[in-house]
């Protein structure tokens, strides 16, 4: 268990402080009349307690902890993940500006091609998919831009 695995708990601790601070600013109310901040404050406190426990244990057992390199990052395909996320964000940006048909066509062409499919199958696959999804969802009463 390397120190790398403590990173999520640092995040949860920060989240718990965020929840407690902002819910304190809302009205906490009282036990017999809880306000809007009561429950999130309580949850923030619980989250802090639960997240601190492994952190404390880690620092207490630090010398005995196994410091072998973490495997979390070794299998991450940053290029592909970055490509997919950029495509998703770009699609979201263009969806209402260019409309469903054009933006979806661009999105699918990019993704199909980016995943290693041939140009012929990319173009045919994208066209068929756009056609089918457009008519299927429109038939079901969904409205597209």
């Amino acid at each position, binding site marked *: *268990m390397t120190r790398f*695995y403590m*990173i*999520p*708990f640092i995040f*949860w601790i920060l*989240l718990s402080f965020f929840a407690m601070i902002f*819910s304190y600013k*809302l009205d906490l109310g*009282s*036990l*017999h*009349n*809880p*306000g*809007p*901040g*009561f*429950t*999130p404050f309580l*949850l*923030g406190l619980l989250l802090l307690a*639960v997240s601190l*426990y*492994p952190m404390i*244990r*880690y620092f207490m057992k630090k010398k*005995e*902890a196994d410091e072998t390199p973490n495997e*979390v990052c070794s*299998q*991450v*395909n940053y290029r*592909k*993940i970055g490509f*997919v*996320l950029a*495509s*998703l*964000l770009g*699609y*979201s940006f263009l*969806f*209402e500006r260019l409309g469903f048909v054009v933006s979806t066509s661009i*999105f699918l062409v990019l*993704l*199909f091609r980016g*995943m*290693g*499919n041939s140009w012929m*199958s990319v173009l045919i*696959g994208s066209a068929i*998919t756009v056609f089918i*999804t457009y008519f*299927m*969802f429109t038939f*079901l*009463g*969904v409205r*597209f831009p």
Partner: protein
Amino acid sequence: MDIFSNILFGFKIVADPLNLLLCFVGVFLGTLMGVLPGIGPTAGISMLLPMTFGLSPESSIIMLAGIYYGTQYGGSTTSILVNIPGEASSIVTCLDGYQMAKQGRAGPALGMAAFGSLIGGTFSILALMFLAAPLAQIAVKFGPPEYFSLICMAMVSSVYIAGGSFIKAVVMIIVGLLLGTVGMDPILGRTRFTFGSGTLIDGIGLVPVAMGLFGVSEVLMNLEESLERVMLKVRVKNLLPNREDWRRSIGPISRGSILGFFLGILPGGGPILASFVSYAVEKKISKNPEGFGQGAIEGVAGPETANNSASGGSFVPLLALGIPSNVVMALFMGALIIHNVTPGPNLIEQHPEIFWGVIASMYVGNVMLLFLNLPLLGLWVRLLKVPYRILMPLILLFCVIGSYTLNNNIVEVIIMIIFGVVGYIMKKFDFEAAPLMVAFILGPMWETSFRQSLIMSGGRFSIFLLSPISLVTLLISMFFIVVMGLSYYRKAKAKEIIV
């Protein structure tokens, strides 16, 4: 109306051509998702939920229910032929099903999985019919303390079932509850954590969160590996099990039906738990336990029956009490809310078309599935060869469309992408998304019950102990927490684990 009249009423609902078509579409898509590894019922139902926005509530639930129990049928196909479970509930089917296929008995394995699923599914529908309505009549008397305790038990059970790290599952529950507080305070109507965003006034949407955590994150995880499937080169023939197969399977099927149904009712239970327990039970009581793992048909018949029976049992707490027993039922609850139907003990009385229509559709759907899975086996086998590089863009497209069409708001798509990244990072650090999802959906009800209880009691926590139902459910929750805590403590002491 008596049960017989009610079920006739339900068949009348299902006999509507649109509902019949939707039932077929649901079981077809469910089987498809069950066959294709990488898309589970949770992601599948999340992605297809937006398709139901324009439909009536009963039609939506008929289709979504078809998807749910359809995935249980489809998952066994890949388990038996490819040794890759299509669904988590089909993991144990790999153990003996694949061995049977290697011995040239893929046909009887697939056939027994299908027949066992039909019998288990039919049993659970009958039991649902007789159990849900009386339970709902009892639940009408529940008040805020009872609901608070029941929901606590549901969340504790989902931690128990999550397996893995106890601490991480608890963190997920708390984070899910916190996410549920975003938006309007359910009692005083004040906005919380919206930071001026109009989109967040109604809270974070269920669909973008579900699609992000289960759809997008799964895609990102799958990008790390090459999903080359080695297909077993066997001719699948003779789908009908012989007399000896039936003799060996009738016991596991009977036990699987009962076990599966009651495990499906349990909060945190469902098809996955049911299939594992059924396998363990059959192996334990078998006269030839050493045969398990070597192609014992009991190892296919029992679990496949149990997982289908559990999918029917899962509906009992949702339809009778308005409390989902697992993450898929939580999505169903979300679907009902989206269609302006309040799940709860009054659902059966106020919306009999939903309850009886869904039950009748399950009878019809299970029969459709038998005909879909056996004669069309060749089609499903061919689908196994569809490469993931073709499936992946389609999954993402459905996720985007689904999130957008919720409110025709692109911000929902951004939320989905954020949760996709969060879900991916969570998976890398072994945080399971299911407890978060259950808590997120139950959170508003949990908070309302909690605060109403405190208002009723003048701030005294003893209100939760004064009601017998509340006391018993809290004691059960405490029992689970103590068991998990002791197990964690023992493991920590023995292996010096930190989390």
